[in-house]
């Protein structure tokens, strides 16, 4: 049991001042602007938006600055902020087939309609430190833009139609189909109601989408290493902009309120069949705000692993255990419970101390009693 403490106000105020000072760092170094974070640490922004579960680049950049670059702290700030805003409603489901593609690759088919588009990727870089980036402004080697993508005249455009690669396999019936459900009003929302196990796929995907990247990465990795083996292929990974449509109650017709950048991963998994399903390719799905490629790949692996029960697979690995995965995926819940251990537990610990003393005394007396029952009687 936690017993509250009070007081310490002056010390806490001073600690917060010190925190502000540490955040600012050396005053001789120019202050970082949130616009710089938004533009130049954009993948941090993307992660904070995805796990903070709020698409707003400017707020995410502010949270990162305030949290001194601690992304989980920044996610916490975003989650707290969102509770202060009213909910206007739910968007129509975004159509990722109509994405304005910036990156789209498939590891399963070489020749796909629309082609393989590498886009802005770390893949195929040599992972050598680029000391040009460390050069101070004004120095030789300042980023001048000469390394940037240029637009020669008459350059080709991407095809208008970029069908989802997994949809190509559908015609042969070799792949598990994803069909729209019938009742849109019954879509689970874990920001409104708690999880009740077993949960449906909608709640599972929402949970994974806002889940911690590191946790999902480790779980996804575990499925590849044999804990719930599912032999995955990256059927398709795509990145780009998608329109968000919303029907305001007061208007009664759908309007586009803007565009969001999304990352999507479709994992395709070999499946040898079971009593429940014939041999086929099964699927795992990952979707995130911004450019979070590692996250959506891991999410897709875990989503597939969690289908184990419905596919009639043996469910014995951590990544296949719905309750284990979903109850531990949220880094704000997790850090809340882990970090509350820092708070004063003086009373709590005093009672534990008393208890341990008492148990030791009893044990000692029991030991003595076994050897010499009369000695105990005499002692009492």
């Amino acid at each position, binding site marked *: 049991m936690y017993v509250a403490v009070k007081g310490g106000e002056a010390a806490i105020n001073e600690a917060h001042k010190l925190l502000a000072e540490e955040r600012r760092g050396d005053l001789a170094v120019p202050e970082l602007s949130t616009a710089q974070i938004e533009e130049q640490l954009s993948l941090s922004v993307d992660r904070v938006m995805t796990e903070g579960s709020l698409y707003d680049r400017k707020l995410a950049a502010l949270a990162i600055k305030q949290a001194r670059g601690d992304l989980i702290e920044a996610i916490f700030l975003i989650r707290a902020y969102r509770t202060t805003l009213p909910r206007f409603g739910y968007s129509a489901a975004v159509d990722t087939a109509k994405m304005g593609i910036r990156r789209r690759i498939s590891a399963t088919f070489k020749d796909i309609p629309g082609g393989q588009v590498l886009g802005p990727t770390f893949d195929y870089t040599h992972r050598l430190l680029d000391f040009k980036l460390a050069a101070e402004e004004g120095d030789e080697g300042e980023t001048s833009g000469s390394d940037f993508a240029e637009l020669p005249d008459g350059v080709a455009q991407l095809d208008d139609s970029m069908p989802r690669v997994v949809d190509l396999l559908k015609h042969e019936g070799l792949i598990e189909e994803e069909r*729209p459900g019938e009742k849109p009003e019954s879509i689970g929302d874990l920001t409104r109601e708690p999880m009740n196990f077993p949960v449906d796929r909608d709640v599972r995907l929402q949970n994974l989408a806002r889940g911690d990247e590191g946790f999902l990465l480790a779980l996804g990795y575990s499925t590849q290493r044999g804990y719930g083996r599912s032999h995955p292929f990256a059927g398709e990974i795509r990145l780009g902009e998608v329109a968000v449509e919303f029907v305001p109650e007061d208007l009664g017709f759908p309007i586009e309120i803007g565009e969001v950048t999304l990352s999507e991963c479709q994992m395709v998994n070999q499946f040898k069949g079971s009593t429940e399903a014939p041999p086929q390719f099964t699927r795992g799905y990952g979707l995130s705000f911004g450019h979070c490629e590692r996250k959506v790949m891991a999410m897709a692996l875990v989503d597939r692993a969690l289908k184990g029960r419905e596919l009639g697979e043996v469910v014995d690995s951590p990544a296949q255990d719905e309750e284990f995965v979903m109850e531990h995926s949220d880094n704000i819940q997790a850090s809340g419970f882990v970090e509350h251990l820092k708070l004063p537990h003086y009373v709590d610990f005093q009672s534990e101390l008393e208890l341990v003393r008492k148990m030791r005394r009893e044990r000692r007396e029991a030991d003595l009693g076994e050897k010499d029952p009369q000695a105990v009687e005499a002692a009492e």
Partner: protein
Amino acid sequence: MSVLAKSDPDDLIRAWDDLEDKPKWRWLRKPETGLVMVRGRAGGTGAPFNLGEITVTRCAVVTEGGENGADQSYTGQGYLAGRNRRHAELAALFDALLQNSERRPALEDAVIKPLAARLEARRHQASAKSAATKVDFFTLVRGED
């Protein structure tokens, strides 16, 4: 409304500043920021699920009729992603003006078409840059085959 919502707010400010004959108007609903839950679909085509929220700012304005009483008043709505109140306000004002069939054609030409062209150019440029990264990998024949 989609063009007004997606355009750069600075472009809207410029268009408003350049506008002759600005109407008198009043708030029907002052700008308010809230959230819309964005939905995706499992596997892209399957059952919908809640992905995460997006900040949205909304407002409504009503333009007032002219002095001679001949003009009608029109209601305009601003509904857009983000927290920029001025952007929402201008989107609502242009929306109101576009309801007026007499002003609509001129506004379409002077404001909406150039904004749409800018958006299109932005898309075009991103598409061209990505197209330059199109790749055609070779599959090598393995030695033992």
